[in-house]
């Protein structure tokens, strides 16, 4: 019998709310678990987070390892690593997936080194190969190449997954997970990292990742004044506004909320319209999952046209107002 069994995911929570990526991981994990006929478990670490275990069950977890303690209120790598190590050593999962969020990307490599196993970073796809090995699809060089990475002789086979890339399962009300408590054996004095303050912004608008339509602007938009055109077009469509890196650097758009691509967000709208965007791989990897892609650019040779379903060659200052008109008329 195999010593290492089951799929474990890290259910990241902040301030008592589950982050979306943890639920996405349950979606991936469920598929693998069903295929392998193994159990899907989640690790939940925090303070007063017990009620979240129900939610994890409803999103597909069979079991929840719960560490609940005031010392775990805010994330710190040393405390969380000890608990991950404990869960791994006691329950010996075959596969462990964590979200490549700031916290996940800080914690996962430490845990991998601690339990002496390999880790594939920022995966955008997972599979089990014909030899039963866990395969992670790892993008490199700004997304231009994709490597299949395996970890054949070490356990658990670990990976981080790109947030926003995988789909959550439909929530099944009333589906229950078995909760297993994990004891906290350390004290504050044992920890080297002290939390002295936290700040988390309350998000008012819907995140870009969830938008059905995305209008994105690039450096070609040219300035704050023209950026309003992009926002106006988005307004007419009820769309979210995204950006490439340069508009964020210029201060026309917000880096954290609006940048799409390799180092920003992954969007998956039914319709994406990119204006004044050249089509760098860094950006394109973030729009890959869009159903229909439209590009507007004045340079007929801009690479984005190759990656678009429909292209309009022209000056955005002329095209956008006409487009707004045409959309108003048709709706």
């Amino acid at each position, binding site marked *: 019998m195999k010593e290492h069994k089951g799929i474990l995911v890290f259910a990241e929570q*902040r301030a008592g709310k589950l982050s979306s990526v943890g639920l996405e991981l349950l979606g991936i994990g469920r598929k693998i678990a069903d295929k392998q006929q193994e159990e899907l478990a989640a690790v939940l670490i925090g303070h007063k987070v017990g009620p979240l275990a129900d939610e994890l069950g409803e999103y597909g977890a069979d079991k929840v390892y719960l560490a609940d303690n005031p010392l775990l209120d*805010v*994330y*710190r*790598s040393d405390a969380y690593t000890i608990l991950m190590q404990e869960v791994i050593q006691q329950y010996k999962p075959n596969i462990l997936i964590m979200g490549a969020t*700031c916290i996940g*990307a*800080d*914690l996962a*490599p*430490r845990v*991998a080194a*601690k339990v*002496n*196993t*390999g*880790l594939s*970073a*920022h995966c955008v796809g997972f599979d089990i*190969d014909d030899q039963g090995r866990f*395969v992670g699809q790892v*993008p*490199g*060089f700004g*997304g*231009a*190449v*994709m*490597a*299949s*990475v395996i*970890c054949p002789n*070490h356990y658990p086979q670990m990976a981080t997954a790109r947030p926003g890339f995988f789909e959550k399962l439909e929530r099944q009300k009333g589906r229950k997970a078995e909760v297993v408590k994990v004891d906290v054996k350390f004290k504050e004095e044992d920890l*080297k*990292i*002290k*939390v*002295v*303050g*936290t700040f*988390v912004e309350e998000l008012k608008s819907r995140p870009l990742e969830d938008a059905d*339509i995305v209008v994105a602007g690039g450096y070609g938009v040219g300035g704050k004044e023209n950026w309003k055109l992009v926002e106006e077009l988005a307004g007419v469509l009820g769309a979210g506004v995204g950006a490439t890196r340069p508009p964020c650097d210029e201060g026309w758009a917000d880096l*954290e909320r609006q940048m799409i691509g390799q180092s920003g967000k992954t969007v998956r709208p039914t*319709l994406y319209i990119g204006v004044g965007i050249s089509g760098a*791989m860094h950006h*394109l990897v973030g729009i890959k999952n869009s159903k*229909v892609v439209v590009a507007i650019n004045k340079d007929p040779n801009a690479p984005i046209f*190759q*990656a678009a*379903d*429909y*292209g*309009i*060659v022209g000056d955005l200052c*002329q*095209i956008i107002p*006409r*487009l707004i008109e045409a959309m108003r*008329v*048709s709706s």
Partner: protein
Amino acid sequence: MKPINSVVCIKPVPDQRFWDKVSLDKKTKTLRRTGIPIALGPLDKNALEEALRIREASGGKVTAISMGPPGTEEILEWAIVLGADEAVLLTDRAFAGADTWATAYALAWGIKKLGGADVVFFGNESLDGSTGQVGPQVAEFLDMPHVTHVNKLDLVGEDALRARFHIEHGFIDVEVKRPVVIAVEKTINEPRCPTLWGTIWLRERKIIRWSADDVGADKAKIGLPGSPTQVSDVITIELKRKSEILSGEPSDVARLLVQKLQADSVLPKG
């Protein structure tokens, strides 16, 4: 104040201006990088800058360390020109083909051979691999705490640091005792430019080269054989779509586009 000795880990990355020259060898499933110049990764410059600022505030030494082929010396020279006191190149055929685990192991043994450090700096992620894994893994091998995604760092008291760990839409401020591993983001500082002095320092300071045996690394834990992960396949990504160019007067193409999108059912029909 006690002097603080820093080690900065810098990674040789292929110069981004030449990335379109990186091609895939379909037979060997490896990337052809020959002829592509290497460069000091952008975040590694921020890491070096932060170490230099600490030295200016408290005294001490800044050592740059890198693991890579002999050509990596070039980026270590840069580190010296920018102000590092010394530079170490871990170079050995046995280090080749390392994943992040085996890279971290080698760097950790290099740092041990240097006698450790009060602060070990990293870029939060590299330009090419962008895993961001090496820093926390070195920290584990050196048994130091680590903080990544740092965009603000201050010295506090005799032996601690206060670091701002940037998270999505917010931050966590932590205080941590030295020795510690810190991985920095771009926004932490503005890296300095080289000066004439730098080129003079370069003449006076030698780059130390160490092999796997020199640092006492276990051969089974470095390079390709020491890497727990393996690349089983590499493909280039195709993002091609149907690429239908609509042409005509702006108002005509606008109307045409709306019709197409309605036909595709991604816009509601009027």
